[in-house]
């Protein structure tokens, strides 16, 4: 009986059978443990948004103020002011305030009055710049000619307008997608439909190698090599700009779009292609008119996921975009994206301050945008696979 393979090599395994029955409580515990660990891992996904949003919430709900619109109180009115409002005016804690002598309080009031004298001249100082209408709308700041969108968190009056950053992000993402999508889709079509099988075997891993390059290396490459070369070719004024950053970013997007699109194109049943070829179409016609339309949702998903990758990429744009927050759709001007702003500024903020919370608000916005992009991409791919393969 050659067919009987010795699967049970050790007959003493029988012993474990009896033991296992008695060991059930332990197993039950272990299995609960498995459930617990996996549920907490899943909880983490939701925690991510929770903790980023938690830090951003006071700003998002308008509970913070950056206004410093206090009027200086005359120093000799020290005795007339109610004790409590004097404490608030000087910004002291209750126990500190009690420990102060009258002379110390007087000195503090003089300092405060001096401090406020400069500020109260400026009508911008009275503005709470963390309000939503200052975050998204233009505002007439006192030293500007016209209403403008300004991101300038480190200044006497911190200005937190998000529009320059959003435009910066969209600008670089657009360049990246315009560069990466045609290349990646062309390559996906070629590799999955047109290339000979032997060539395909080598091409796929080589293109996927691109995704193994860390983004900081792509950023370095954009900054050191591409920036100078492109400036030499196109002759624009600023060496680091949205165009350079977008092209470098495109290198990070190509493998994402390629592998998802290639996967979708390959999952189209071969019988479609065979039928088309039998009817006399060329390989290209079969690929373009049969396979591509059948896999169109997958290609769309590839582009959406590529968008999510591009808008969330940090190091490339931080290094190659020039980081000037300007409202302009000119691709050849220095630009600053949402991600780069977080990376560059968070280390210098006061924990819990409005600048800190504003950066978390940007992070929460990024999370939502990429989450929605991923969700769309995932659902589309899932549906496509169900349709093409006839299974869930």
């Amino acid at each position, binding site marked *: 009986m050659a067919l009987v393979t010795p699967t049970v090599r050790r007959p003493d395994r029988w012993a474990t059978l009896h033991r296992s029955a008695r060991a059930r409580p332990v197993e039950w515990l272990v299995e609960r443990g498995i459930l617990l*660990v996996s549920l907490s891992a899943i909880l983490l996904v939701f925690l991510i948004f929770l903790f980023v949003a938690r830090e951003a919430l006071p700003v998002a709900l308008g509970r913070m103020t950056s206004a410093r619109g206090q009027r200086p109180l005359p120093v000799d009115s020290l005795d007339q002011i109610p004790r409590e409002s004097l404490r608030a005016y000087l910004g002291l804690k209750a126990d500190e305030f009690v420990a102060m002598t009258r002379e110390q309080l007087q000195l503090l009031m003089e300092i405060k009055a001096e401090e406020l004298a400069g500020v109260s001249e400026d009508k911008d100082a009275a503005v709470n710049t963390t309000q939503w209408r200052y975050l998204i709308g233009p505002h007439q700041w006192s030293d500007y000619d016209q209403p403008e969108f300004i991101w300038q968190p480190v200044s006497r009056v911190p200005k937190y307008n998000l529009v320059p950053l959003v435009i910066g992000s969209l600008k670089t993402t657009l360049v990246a997608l315009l560069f990466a999508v045609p290349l990646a889709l062309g*390559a996906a079509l070629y590799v999955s439909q047109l290339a000979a099988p032997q060539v395909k075997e080598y091409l796929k891993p080589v293109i996927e190698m691109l995704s193994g390059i860390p983004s900081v290396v792509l950023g370095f*490459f954009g900054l050191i090599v591409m920036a100078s070369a492109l400036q030499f070719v196109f002759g624009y004024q600023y060496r680091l700009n949205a165009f350079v950053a977008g092209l470098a970013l495109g290198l990070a997007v190509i493998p994402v779009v390629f592998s998802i699109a290639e996967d979708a194109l390959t999952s189209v049943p071969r019988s479609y292609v065979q039928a088309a070829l039998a009817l006399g179409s060329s390989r290209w016609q079969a690929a373009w008119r049969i396979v591509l339309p059948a896999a169109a949702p997958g290609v769309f998903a590839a582009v959406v996921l590529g968008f999510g990758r591009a808008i969330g990429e940090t190091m490339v744009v931080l290094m190659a975009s020039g980081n000037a927050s300007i409202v302009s759709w000119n691709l050849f001007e220095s630009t600053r994206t949402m991600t780069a702003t977080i990376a560059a500024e968070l280390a210098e903020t006061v924990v819990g301050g409005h600048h800190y919370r504003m950066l978390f608000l940007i992070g929460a916005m990024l999370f939502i945008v990429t989450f929605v992009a991923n969700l769309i991409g995932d659902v589309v791919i899932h549906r496509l696979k169900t349709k093409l393969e006839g299974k869930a």
Partner: protein
Amino acid sequence: MSKVAIRPESFDTQLRKRRRWQRMLLRDENLAWDIRRVGVDLPSSVFTGLTGGATLMIVGILAFILANILWNGWSGLSWRFVVAGTTEDMFDVNKAGVFPMIFGTAARVILMTLFVIPVGVITAVYLTEYASPTSPVTRIIRGAVNNLAGVPSIVFGLFGLGFFISFVGGHLDRLFLPGTAEPVWGKPALVWASMTLAVMTLPVVIVATEESLRAILPGLREASLALGATKLQTVVKVVLPQALPGILTGGILAVSRAAGEVAPILFTGAAYYMAHLPQSLTDQFMDLGYHVYVLSTQSPNIELTRPILYATVVVLLGLTFALNVAAIVIRSRVRQRLRAMH
């Protein structure tokens, strides 16, 4: 009656016929690949050329990047550079070394593996072996895991700062070390950077493990159960050993992704400069990727720094590529086994 002799075809004739058929079939096969002969229409050949050109361009860009980095980085690379620390001037070619950065990167990656592998494998086991495959809960979990993979890495950095450092670290300080002025846990540290990266690479491990778990023949599980093993015994002694290559792949992919990431550790542990190696979990560390960023943006004289910058990039790329190649080799073996079974 004369018999009509039905002469059997001679062997030679048979062979000739067979060869002719073969030739025809083969030619058709070749024709299909050869656009010059089948492609009567111009557009077909033009567009095939275009897509082939796109492929070639991507490969060319990749080759150019790697060649440029290797060409320029080779000269700056030396044994001293790899094993020496930086004591005086980290922008000086003759004095700089990257050992502290290699050490820091290795430390954070190894720590991360310790966190992410057990959690990822257990979650994957739950999803494939225990959870019902059709229930909406499982689908939501899968969706959430997939989405985790697409969250920008800088958001993970924010999460690490908000959750691990401010929340967990802050509470640890308040609980165990009340009254200490300097925070011990509630500041950027090696352990928090590793944990942040572990959260980030969790989907990689889960997806790879799940894939290899699903590739195991259901017959194996059934045989084990039929022999009287309990479900847990089956999972631990039959399923998991079979899935080991997949788990390994997931681990290596996670490591190679984490090794090159900079954005998540910017605020959770990476240091601009440290005179000594990290001594404990709560120390900060220097990091290869962050060092590339520092060298290329903070250098007082980029022309002088260029050789060490390139050399550092070579070290970083060498590290991540070696890991990637290992993962690809293991994964292709697993996939082959998967294909052989179906």
